[in-house]
């Protein structure tokens, strides 16, 4: 079979581009990075016919080739630079059939790059419903390219599209659109000479944004010289180009579209909007939805989580009963299996959270949240667009910080990046759930809202409040580079695509297990070793002491001796010594050296807390290490006072510490990648850790 042809999907936001991508590639896709920059590169494979395979690249949605954000700039880089490794053989432009003129603006720019192109009109079924009739043959004839009508949601027209892609010629056939040469004729002429091209539009685009293309950086001076000598005014020419293109498109579309009632599609959406963005009810509904989501995370996930928890307890007990006793078995069961259990148990909660986020985004509600929240967010130095990364941070700060690229304004973006990790992510969820179940009684208020769910929501509200406060302070400290703006499309309300929801749940759970899982397993193993071994002289002394004790006492007391011995060993292990070393610093927060060990391991990834606790208490309990982590922790006592360790004060202080502290290496790394300097991640690490320490200190000292 010949090597696959490369296809790039290009289109406006909200045109169903991603749906089409998923349909074409199915589960056969992977997410990588474009070299040098951190924009997600979604690539998948698609069988066009029995002999032809295609590699499909999904490019970020954009309204034009002139980027307004970092995410959008990748589109021009991939399409205009023939040396780019993702440069396509064929471009598939996907356009919303219900709003053709605006969608074709991007098409006309892309077509002028003279790469073979194919136009897909999506949402043909909706267009028909609204009384918009598109004469596809006429449009195809006028543009000089193949045009295919599809409905990605109802999956019609896909075979036809695959066939059309297979039939696309290697030579560009598109008719030349509006004349671009007239905009800056002399400068364009000089650029054509400079880079040896006969493409007017490519030359014009290079004048506008050669600095974004790696292949042309060595000619930077020449480009700047041409721009200066011809008084090249970028904004003015962009405006002139846009107007010229729309004028051309009006002639193309005359007689192609028959519109008998385009306003119809808004009737239903408007009715929903008048309720959901209502002056009075809007915010109550938003809060209600949030409460519902948190309640669901707690109550729906409870049963599968219990099942997972018990399975792992059973597995450990089964292993200890049937495998030969020894170091390897202990490492496998108390190190690896305990760590693994600590990961797998989050899957239900993560899946449920992502299901809701995906539903809210898919239906169009998230855009309304952005719309409603903009004014409030602006008061804190953020923009309505910061809401999506912040809500996304409820799941994980890493993709959310990357999604902040859609914020055009530099200052808004930096502040959003700086505060996103404060919003409680899913890695804190197991820490909260575990601690809440220890310190908050499982009772219901008003008969149906669980107190534990309320406490959980409280933790989230505290974290969001902290994020807003920090944003407010940073708003005064950081100087703005350019004007902030907020021009955004509000898509019509739609039913969520359930398949998409399920795909997101699967995808995020998988990413979590494999990405976070690697770190957690590694930490679990290291930890087990550190908790099981210590300086040899200390361990020898303990062995000697207990051997003598065992000889003296009769057999009925052996089990308590075993436990004391295990505890003493843990205390003298490398982990124990480390925990003891930092104990003076954390004692004012209400923590002992065991929690200290968990804090240390959590600095790489906070989800390690539960696993660490599980490992430490498994080792601690020696031979009788059955029972769940929760049971083990609830009976834990403070070595200094002999009282239960996890009191309300300690538990709350610990939750605050986890809420505010920057305990995530991945976030530090991604902030560095996104800001391209160590300055911001360093500031973030310092302010968050400081905030965590002070908040926990105050909380514990007041509550104890």
């Amino acid at each position, binding site marked *: 079979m010949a090597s696959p042809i490369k296809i790039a999907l290009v289109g406006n936001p909200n045109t169903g581009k991603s749906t089409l991508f998923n349909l074409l590639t199915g589960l056969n896709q992977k997410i990588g990075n474009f070299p040098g920059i951190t924009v997600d590169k979604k690539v998948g494979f698609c069988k066009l016919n029995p002999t032809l395979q295609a590699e499909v690249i999904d490019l970020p949605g954009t*309204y*034009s080739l*002139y980027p*307004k954000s970092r995410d959008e700039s990748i589109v021009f880089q991939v399409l205009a630079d023939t040396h780019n490794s993702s440069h396509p053989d064929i471009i598939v432009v996907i356009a919303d059939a*219900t*709003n053709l*003129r*605006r969608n074709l*603006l991007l098409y006309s720019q892309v077509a002028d790059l003279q790469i073979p192109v194919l136009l897909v009109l999506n949402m043909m079924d909706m267009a028909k419903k609204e009384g918009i009739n598109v004469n596809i043959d006429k449009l195809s004839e006028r543009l000089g390219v193949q045009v295919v009508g599809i409905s990605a949601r109802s999956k019609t027209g896909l075979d036809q599209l695959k066939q059309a892609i297979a039939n696309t010629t290697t030579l560009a056939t598109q008719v030349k659109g509006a004349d671009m040469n007239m905009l800056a004729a002399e400068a364009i002429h000089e650029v054509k000479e400079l880079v040896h091209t006969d493409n007017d539009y490519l030359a014009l685009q290079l004048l506008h944004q050669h600095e974004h293309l790696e292949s042309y950086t060595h000619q930077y001076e020449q480009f700047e010289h041409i721009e200066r000598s011809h008084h090249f005014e970028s*904004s*003015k020419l*962009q*405006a002139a180009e*846009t*107007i010229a293109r*729309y004028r051309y498109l009006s002639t193309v579309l005359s007689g192609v579209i028959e519109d008998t009632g*385009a306003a119809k599609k*808004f009737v239903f*959406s*408007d009715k929903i*909007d*008048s309720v959901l*963005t*209502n*002056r*009075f009810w*809007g*915010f109550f509904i938003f809060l209600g939805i949030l409460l519902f989501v948190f309640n669901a995370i707690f109550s729906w996930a409870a049963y599968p989580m219990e099942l997972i928890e018990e399975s792992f307890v059973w597995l450990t007990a089964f292993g200890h009963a049937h495998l030969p006793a020894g170091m390897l078995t202990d490492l496998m069961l108390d190190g690896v299996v305990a760590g693994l259990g600590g990961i797998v148990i989050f899957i239900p909660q993560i899946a449920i959270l992502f299901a809701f986020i995906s539903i809210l985004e898919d239906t169009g509600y998230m855009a309304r949240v952005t*719309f*409603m929240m*903009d*004014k*409030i967010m602006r008061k804190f130095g953020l923009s*309505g667009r910061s809401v999506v990364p912040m809500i996304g941070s409820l799941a994980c700060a890493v993709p959310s910080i990357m999604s902040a690229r859609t914020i055009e304004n530099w200052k808004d973006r930096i502040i959003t990046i700086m505060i996103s990790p404060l919003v409680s992510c899913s890695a804190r969820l197991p820490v909260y759930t575990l601690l809440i179940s220890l310190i908050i009684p499982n009772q219901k208020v008003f008969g149906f809202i669980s107190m534990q769910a309320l406490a959980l929501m409280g933790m989230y509200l505290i974290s969001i409040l902290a994020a807003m406060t920090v944003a407010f302070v940073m708003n005064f400290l950081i100087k703005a580079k350019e004007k902030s*703006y*907020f*021009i*955004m*499309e*509000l*898509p*019509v309300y739609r039913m969520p695509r359930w398949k998409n929801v399920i795909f997101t749940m699967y995808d995020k759970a998988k990413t979590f297990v494999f990405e976070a899982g690697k770190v957690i397993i590694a930490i679990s193993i290291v930890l087990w070793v550190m908790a099981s071994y210590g300086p040899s002289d200390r361990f020898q002394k303990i062995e000697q002491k207990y051997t003598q004790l065992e000889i003296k006492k009769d057999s009925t007391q052996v089990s308590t001796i075993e436990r004391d011995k295990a505890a003493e060993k843990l205390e003298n292990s490398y982990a124990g010594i480390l925990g003891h070393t930092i104990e003076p610093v954390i004692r004012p927060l209400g923590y002992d050296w065991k929690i200290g060990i968990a804090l240390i391991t959590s600095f790489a990834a906070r989800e390690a807390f539960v696993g660490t606790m599980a490992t430490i208490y498994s080792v601690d309990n020696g031979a009788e290490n059955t029972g769940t982590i929760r049971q083990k922790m609830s009976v834990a006592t403070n070595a200094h006072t002999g009282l239960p360790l996890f009191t309300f004060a300690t538990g709350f202080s610990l939750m605050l510490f986890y809420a505010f502290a920057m305990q995530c290496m991945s976030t530090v790394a991604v902030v560095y990648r996104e800001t391209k300097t160590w300055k911001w991640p360093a500031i973030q690490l310092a302010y968050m850790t400081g905030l965590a320490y002070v908040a926990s200190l105050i909380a514990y000292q007041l509550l104890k």
Partner: protein
Amino acid sequence: MKLSQLNPGERGTIVAFTDLEMSVKLMEMGCLPGEMVEVERFAPLGDPIAIRVAGYQLCLRKNEASVIIIS
């Protein structure tokens, strides 16, 4: 008259823009001179506003709407 001066339900035709850079962004999103705009609603706190233009809904802040001159 500026677009920001309209109340929900009122409409006008775009004539010109007072900010060059923003005009490119607005035109790319379908706000062209000659196009009819209608203010659909205000956000619960009065800003931003949602408008209908060129067959879809757009939201923008009031100070951004003030660069759009309508008649």
